[in-house]
């Protein structure tokens, strides 16, 4: 039981120390929505030509990172969690790019 109480205390303490508040979560949500709106707007900006690809890639990377850092708490949590996730993510990206390279540029 003591452990239980401790855990509850700990969880309560998180809110005050470092962990984001509902307000932060709301601001993040607003930023995410805004970026999505910008993405869709850019999509219709045909004059950008090929420029659309890097711009959209950067914007969705920002969204991705914000969800991972704030909503999934990676920014506040143990580094080991980030390593496990980013390791798999980086490998997945490498495999995707390697396969695109092998099929599109070296044929």
């Amino acid at each position, binding site marked *: 039981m003591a452990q239980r109480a401790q855990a509850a205390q700990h969880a309560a303490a998180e809110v005050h120390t470092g962990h984001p508040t509902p307000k932060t979560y709301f601001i993040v949500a607003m930023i995410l929505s805004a970026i999505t709106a910008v993405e869709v707007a850019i999509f219709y900006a045909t004059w950008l030509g090929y420029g659309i690809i890097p711009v959209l890639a950067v914007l969705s990377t920002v969204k991705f990172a914000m969800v*991972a850092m704030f*909503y999934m708490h990676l920014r506040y949590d*143990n580094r080991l969690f980030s390593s496990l996730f980013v390791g798999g993510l980086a490998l997945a990206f490498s495999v995707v790019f390697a396969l695109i390279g092998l099929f599109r540029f070296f044929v």
Partner: protein
Amino acid sequence: MAQAPAVPHGDAADETTTGLSHRKLLMWAFLGSDCMFFGSLIATYLVYKGKSISGPLPEDVFSIPVTSVSTFVLLMSSMSMVMAYSALTRGNIKGFRIWIMSTAIMGMTFLAFQTFEFRDFVQEGLTPRTNLFGTTFFTLTGFHGAHVTLGVIWLLSLFFYSFKRGGVTAERSLDVDLAALYWHFVDIVWIVIFTVVYLFGVFEGFN
């Protein structure tokens, strides 16, 4: 056989080497692994992009405004998920129920959008058998949809379990934390799919 105390085995984070709970470590390792799963599906989609020998093609079927709405719904469900967790850690079980139910509803809304989208595409002549685009598109987004479905079942289970006394409590917030991590992951996979499949898909210069 040894008798046991009531402390659930996997939750006693204080007793582990790293100080992290077993289940949370497992969840993150799983998410790292799931990146490879979606990575392989996305790689297949991209390798075959523009290789279909017959239509319909992305620009014939996609409706960016509609998908933007469902994307927005899924993004907002992530916010409500984190609100549910936050409410629970503050001991606000009512808030938790409201937020987790709205998360599940938004998840189901997303799935409804996807179902109607799939039905539309089929009516326009695009099935998984039609061409390479159909094959890769339905498989990739279908598996994402399956992930969302599983997440909705998980969230609803937590919602109903919270009515049982001591079922969902601040001390056991880890149960909700794990579901939340899974849910956010499904959301960020969609962020990638929305950009790579939908936005790049209709862009004429890229195939």
